[in-house]
């Protein structure tokens, strides 16, 4: 997913960011499905939507739901214009899947809060204006999910050090972010003090159910079809048919979760299903490509060879970002009362 601030601004001008938000905050009050159509079409053609993606997908709905009136007035119009980019500060060096073990701490002071700690794998932190971060506001107790809160952090504040981390494809998307005595005001707290865990888990349903969980490999599927041509052999036909059927069905599941989100429900379990099934397929696609077309992945070859090289390397991240497959399956198992 490419990053292009100019493209995001143009989309904002067109009214295609924050589409579902109230008009008074710059939105269009469009339905969740209208938004779904727009983002799906953008993804299907590989548009560079990364800059505003997180703000549009989860920060804006989250602020709308839990934010104060002042926060909504301050942040939502900029998101809708495609000018305000957000990132999400959840993981830490010592807290990956075990998110409740975070140690980033916000302590009260007379003016608000002081933030100290370290976030990692924060996508686009180096190119964003704000981070919504999860921090402890109370010492850890036996009730692990208590005492966490979310804050909106202006990344231009003093005391913040952002270091991009190069990934194995050579790209720099994610970062390590260090907070050293970062001063936050009372108005930077998002939602309830101590309600961070519930807010974060609700927010993750947005992150886990969207079309981007199905379409990461569309560019490869398309170039693969072109490479196979009009007369597939039996194996090629079978594999491409199976991929098409699965994308078709996963899309239906993703839309069903969108309907639940739209109705104000918290479809955390359904979203976990969509993400795990979606990621399983996305990770299979480069393998299927290798199995049915005898071309080598190459970073300077044809379109197909380039896309294959890129996605073969990127694929392991699909089942890490937004919650690992083991965590998602744990959520599903809990809903079946096995844990």
């Amino acid at each position, binding site marked *: 997913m490419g990053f292009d601030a100019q493209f995001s601004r143009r989309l904002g001008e067109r009214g295609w960011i924050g589409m579902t938000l109230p008009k008074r905050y710059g939105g269009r009050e469009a339905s969740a499905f209208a938004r779904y159509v727009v983002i799906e079409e953008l993804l299907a053609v590989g548009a560079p939507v990364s800059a505003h993606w997180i703000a549009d997908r989860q920060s804006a709905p989250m602020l709308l739901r839990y934010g104060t009136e002042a926060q909504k007035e301050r942040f939502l119009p900029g998101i809708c214009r495609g000018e305000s980019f957000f990132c999400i500060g959840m993981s830490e060096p010592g807290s990956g899947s075990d998110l409740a073990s975070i140690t980033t701490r916000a302590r009260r002071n007379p003016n608000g809060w002081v933030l100290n700690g370290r976030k990692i794998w924060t996508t686009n932190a180096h190119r964003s204006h704000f981070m919504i971060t999860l921090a402890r506001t109370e010492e850890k107790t036996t009730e692990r999910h208590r005492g966490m809160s979310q804050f909106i952090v202006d990344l231009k504040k003093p005391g913040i050090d952002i270091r991009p981390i190069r990934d194995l494809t050579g790209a720099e998307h994610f970062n390590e972010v260090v907070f050293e005595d970062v001063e936050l005001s009372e108005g930077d707290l998002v939602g309830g003090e101590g309600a961070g865990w519930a807010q974060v888990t609700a927010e993750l349903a947005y992150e886990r159910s969207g079309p981007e969980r199905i379409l990461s490999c569309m560019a490869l599927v398309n170039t693969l079809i072109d490479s196979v041509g009009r007369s597939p052999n039996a194996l090629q036909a079978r594999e491409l048919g199976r991929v098409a059927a699965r994308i078709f069905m996963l899309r239906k599941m993703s839309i069903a979760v969108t309907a639940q989100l739209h109705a104000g429900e918290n479809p955390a379990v*359904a979203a976990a299903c969509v993400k795990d099934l979606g990621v399983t397929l996305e990770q299979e696609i480069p393998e299927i490509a290798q199995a049915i077309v005898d071309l080598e992945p190459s970073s300077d070859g044809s379109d197909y060879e380039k896309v294959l090289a890129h996605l073969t390397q990127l694929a392991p991240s699909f089942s890490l970002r937004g919650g690992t497959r083991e965590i998602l399956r744990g959520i599903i198992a809990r809903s079946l009362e096995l844990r």
Partner: protein
Amino acid sequence: MRDLFEETIERIFSDLVSPALIHQCADGAWPETLWSTLEEAEMTFAAVPEALAGAGATWEETFALVRAAGAHAVPAPFADALLANWLLGRAGLQPVKGPLAISAYSELTCSDGYAGGRLERIPWGRHLKHIVAISAGSDPKLVVLDTASAAQLDRRTNLAGEPRDTVVFDRARIVHAQPLPVGTRPDFLPLCGAMLRSAQMAGALQSLLQLTTGYATERVQFGKPIGHFQVIQQQIAVMAEHAACALLAAEAAFVESAGEISVLPIIAAKICVGEAASIGASIAHAVHGAIGFTDEHSLHLKTRRLWAWRAEYGSQNSWSQKLGQSVCEFGSSGLWPMLTQTAKSTPRARESLI
């Protein structure tokens, strides 16, 4: 209305369909009480229009009935009869009483009110009163045949022990016949059958998931219920994902076929539900251990049906190949429009598909 249909069918199946009955039927018995109860409750006429004395169930409601039949492993052609009567109603013909099913694989030639041909893989053929088939030739007709006029019947079964007989007709009098609309696809009946089996499999998978979570909660090993081990939880979660996908896929195939059979949702459902059946049955057996492999345990009443049904009316492999052929024919620029089409908006795209 869906609730009413579901309550009625659940009550009938819970009262009358037991593992013992399923075993008896696999040994050749016919569940007369069950069938007459279904007919008295007018369940076999559910999908027939009200104008033809049916209940006029929507496709969503019909789906719920078929799903329930799969969940209970009903040892009678109830789902098949629902569909056959819907087909008759669609052609403007009266529904028929008595056991009936469709014949999706037949070479049936008709002339002057008589029909002849070999009909293969007829569900419960030996117990049927009527068979609904489509005649061969350039002006195909929907034909109702009386099994009493069959010349020959070869008893065959699928791997779950459900009858799938070969019925041969030789100049048998046609009970009813009605020309089909121009442009009816040659694979119309296999598609209908694929839709049916997808919904039955989705129901069976739900039931399998319940059985498996139940067993994992009760069975104690290493001092705790096996469901407390992450390795078991993770496996059952995968099964739950596929069961959820199967349910949505099969329901979509039905709902989008309201009015006219919707090809891509049915094919995609048969492929995805077939895959879910393979994965779900495998995990269910792994979790149940040796006890689930016994004849006495009722697990196999569901898993053997899943293995049988996934292969009927086109396996996931054969439908995948057909779908893949048309994916390649339309090329990369055709894929996205194909996947995002809706049943209502692009009739042309639907017709040209596959």
